[in-house]
Structure formats: C-alpha cells, structure tokens
C-alpha cells in the first residue's frame, strides 16, 4: 500500500525531507524499522509515538492505503 510520511524535528533533519510517499506491505513497527534503517535514525522505537491521519495511534494500528503516517519523537514544547 502507498503511505504518506511526514517528518518532524530531528527525524526530519535526519531524513533530509519533510514528506515521502512509500510503498509498504507490513505494519507500523516494520515501517519504522525500515525508515530508521534507510535514514540512519538513532532514536529507538520505544521513544517514538505513532500518529495516523492526524491522531495518535497505538503501534498495532492497522495501516491502510493512503494513510498519513507520522513518527513523533519526544516532544519539548512549553
């Protein structure tokens, strides 16, 4: 399925792009592993939250064609 990825903060800097469209067959855990390997992320998945279509989602969320997926590194507002 085709997924829209958006990147923020250190994960965007490491990716070097703000958005990507990827073709991915597995689940969100496998997607983060693939993206991490490709972009050389040092951030373990345990520190990252998943957001799908603008809402925080559990890591076992079933992804669907066209979903917008964001990996949220630890936040630092305030």
């Amino acid at each position: 399925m085709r997924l829209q990825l958006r990147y923020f903060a250190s994960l965007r800097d490491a990716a070097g792009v703000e958005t990507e469209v990827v073709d991915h067959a597995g689940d969100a855990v496998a997607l983060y592993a693939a993206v991490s390997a490709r972009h050389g992320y040092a951030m373990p998945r345990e520190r990252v939250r998943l957001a799908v279509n603008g809402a925080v989602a559990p890591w076992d969320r079933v992804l669907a064609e066209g979903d917008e997926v964001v990996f949220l590194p630890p936040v630092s507002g305030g």
Partner: protein
Amino acid sequence: MSATRRGQFRLNGHGIDVAALRRSLEDPHCGAVVGFDGVVRDHHGGRAVSALRYEAYADLAEREGQAIVDEALARFDVRGIVAEHRVGLLAIGDVAVYVGVSAAHRDAAFAACRHVIDEIKARVPIWKHERYGDGAAAWIHPD
C-alpha cells in the same frame, strides 16, 4: 461541562499577548485567575542559548491541546481556560506558552493551570530547536 464554561488552545505564530488572553478570562463569577507563562531562557543545561525555534505538527498539536483543555474543564471546577503556544523563531524573553485559568476559587485554578501546562509539555507535538552561543544547535527530545 456547563454551557458557560469555555476553553481554547491555539498555536500562535507571531507573539503571545498575555494581557489580552488574561482579559479574555474576565467573568463576574470568578474570584481567581491563575496564569502560567513559559518564557525563553538564556540558558539550558548549562549552555548559553542564543536562539530558539518551536516546530509543531500543527493539526495534531491543536487537536491534542484542545483535548487537554477540554479534559481539564471537565475535571476541575473552573470556568475558563485559555492556552497558546508559540511556533517559529523566538528570542530570549519571549513568551513561549501561556496557560490562564479562571475559577470561583483558587484551589481549582491552581490545580487546573498546573495540569494543563504539564499535559501540554508531555503530549502536544511541539519540538524545541536550540541554537547555542558556541554555534552548535540541537533538537530537544527529553527522555
């Protein structure tokens, strides 16, 4: 939540007007207003900070921030909550975040204000990028 309670969270790209937000909480039923301003400091972790930028995942940040405010309105005996968080480039001394809470009594106002700022810091997808006096820069991703 009674119809007369109201709460609002917004991202702000130009400058937080604390006095105007404070005035928006005025209400003849309220005896207490507690406000929290988070201000850009000139140091962090022992290093001199020269510039600071906040980046947000805007759609989710506004939804999550509004959810925090709505939860606090339901949980605490307060009348009004306003919260704004800056995004973009900030200077030392700029207000990065403001949370104001009005209530009949100060217990609830203090508790709700503290709760909202704590939840904003924990949950809202906003990230701080610091540039230091020595030229280095870093995204802040707390453990």
